[in-house]
């Protein structure tokens, strides 16, 4: 048994963190760990985090040494991997899936010197920060594109689970569409999976056969974009730029950009002034970005999108600026106000313009 050596390692790790905190010249690189929920693949949620990690590595070079573990199941296994990263001297750990929230909090209690940053969660601690992006802002912009490009005035939306983040996306997309095309409607199909290419494709083709001529998605594979390409309708990507999977169909995508954030957190940690984040960043922070817009989209629409993007950035525009009415016509946000964050975070309804009912609880 090599218990002492490992405890030694932990102590060295802690000492290192202290040395860094004191601003001493760092001989050793800062060891940073990343935990991914799926295989990295070539598009999707995890892939964007991996791009962020690479961007940070590129920016900081030899000052950081990163390690990542992919395909870590949410549940009992996650805590072991997070703990292992903390034990092996990683002083900054990014856990990149909602299901890692409780494991991250638990491990953080045993490693007070290690800084943890958890994506999309809501629990924080003295050494656990959370970060998330206002994906809905990107959705609003893609909605403008969809609203201008649709001929049938029906967009289809392939969605995973009815949690607030997904509902924010559907609703913001719908509002974006209707801001330029009041007749537009959105049909939603829940596939009850983040990732099942077969079902995602089936949902997309179903929506197309029911009249949708723009397909948006909140699932992890590129299957909906490919389905749209094959059926000759438009698609809006998500997470990543998915244009190479549907060169004709792909109008644009709302993409996640974590690189700048990862770089900044690592720089802060290197400088010894890292504080747990509590960040919900949007377009303004560069965390959400539109993928290049397909040239089939007319110039005037592209300009419209650029203007809305600038307004979102400056704060002049809010994706949920009142009046926000839900499906039943109930006013959720009165005119002249914007939806506050706590209300956004608990969203559990469809806005006006979304067809159908939410699945029963």
């Amino acid at each position, binding site marked *: 048994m090599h218990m002492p050596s490992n405890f030694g390692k932990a102590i060295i790790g802690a000492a290192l963190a202290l040395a860094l905190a004191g601003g001493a010249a760092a001989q050793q690189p800062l060891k940073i760990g990343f935990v991914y929920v799926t295989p990295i693949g070539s598009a999707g949620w995890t892939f964007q985090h991996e791009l962020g990690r690479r961007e940070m590595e590129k920016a900081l070079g030899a000052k950081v040494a990163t390690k990542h573990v992919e395909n870590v199941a949410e549940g009992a296994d996650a805590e072991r991997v997070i703990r292992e990263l903390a034990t092996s001297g990683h002083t900054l750990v990014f856990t990149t899936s909602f299901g890692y929230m409780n494991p991250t909090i638990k491990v953080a209690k045993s490693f007070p010197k290690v800084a943890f940053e958890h994506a999309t969660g809501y629990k924080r601690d003295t050494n656990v920060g959370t970060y998330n992006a206002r994906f809905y802002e990107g959705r609003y912009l893609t909605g403008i594109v969809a609203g201008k490009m649709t001929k049938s005035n029906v967009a289809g939306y392939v969605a995973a689970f009815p949690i607030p983040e997904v509902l924010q996306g559907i609703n913001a997309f719908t509002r974006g569409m209707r801001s330029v095309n009041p007749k537009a409607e959105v049909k939603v199909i829940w596939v009850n999976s983040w990732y099942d290419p077969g079902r995602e494709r089936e949902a997309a083709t179903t929506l197309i056969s029911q009249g949708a001529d723009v397909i948006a998605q909140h699932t992890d594979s590129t299957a909906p974009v490919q389905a749209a390409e094959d059926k000759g309708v438009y698609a809006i990507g998500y997470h990543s730029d998915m244009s190479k999977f549907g060169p004709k169909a792909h109008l644009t995508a709302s993409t996640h950009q974590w690189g700048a954030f990862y770089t900044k957190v690592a720089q802060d940690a290197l400088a010894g002034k890292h504080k747990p984040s509590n960040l919900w960043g949007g377009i303004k922070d560069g965390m959400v970005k539109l993928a290049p817009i397909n040239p089939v989209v007319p110039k005037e629409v592209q300009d419209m999108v650029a203007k809305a993007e600038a307004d979102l950035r400056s704060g002049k525009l809010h994706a949920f600026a009142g009046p926000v009415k839900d499906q039943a016509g109930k006013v959720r946000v009165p005119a002249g106000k914007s939806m506050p964050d706590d209300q956004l975070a608990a969203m559990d309804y469809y806005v006006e313009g979304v067809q159908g009912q939410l699945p029963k*609880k």
Partner: protein
Amino acid sequence: MRLRLEARPAPSRAMRYLSPLVATALTVVAGFIVFSGLGREPLAAFHAFFVRPVSSLNGLAELVLKASPLMLIATGLAIGYRANVWNIGAEGQLILGAIFGGGLALAFPGAESRWFLVLMVLAGATGGLLWAAIPALLRNRFNTNEILVSLMLVYVATLLLSYLVHGPWRDPQGFNFPQSRMFADAALYPILAEPTRLNAGFLVALGAVACGWLFIERSFLGYQMRVAGLAEAAARYAGFSSGRTVWIGMLAGGAAAGIAGVGEVAGPIGQLTSSVSPGYGFAAIIVAFVGRLNPVGIVFASLLMSLLYLGGESAQMELRLPSAITGLFQGMLLFFLLGSDVLVHYRVRLLPRAPAPREEAAA
């Protein structure tokens, strides 16, 4: 030249112990080829896979923590398998155990007594038992194949859990995310060795394995069931009820899996989520066979299986190998272990002529 298998008059004792070594040797050779092929130093890879995960106290604790549900379920299943009762739905029974035990924890968030945990374990065992009773009942009443029914019920159990955590049991303060509230402290297994995660669930598993051993090796009922497995007709002739064999065989696996389910939610997870098990119910079937349906062997097999999981993570971190390498390597090792068991019951003969209509690649 062709290889031919000949039945041994009696199972070879020597081979019983040698065949795992043969399997290990084959794995080393295969691992050498795979890792070299990937351009990795094989020795470093073996170190990352098999040594590094267990070279710390925490690593050992994790090894045992992950092995606990496997040994628990595999022992329960082995009781049935020895009697030719094929419960392959332990995954579903585990989920029902988690639902029953976890449901109790959610129903009494204010529980403080230490005995509450005992109640949860009993509830979990009941859940697994009830789920396993369905294929047992159908087999006894309607002669239905228990392999297929128990497998079907896995899907139903998964969907039932998904329904509960998406619907009625969802944490009202949890922003609609599909998971339950966290359990109260009284509803969690106490940790055995801080700062590791090893909890009292391990003792429960060990206790169950010991009971399984006593039942299989030392009880008359266990003996009867073994006879029933070897020769059904003889057992019936001797007056052993085959219906009772099915009941005991199925329920033992169900109860064990149910307890394992509680062990997960009241142990490392601490709440109900839509995925309470990374396939322990299926992995335990492999563990049962690699351990030769013998509780002692099962303990070793479960540790090995657990090591393969940890090794996969370690190989990712140390060698930057993708996580897929785990399944690849696990599959190979299990093939070798399952295959080399043939040596216990058969001897391999080289025959001079080759009129083979097919190729036989004997180990």
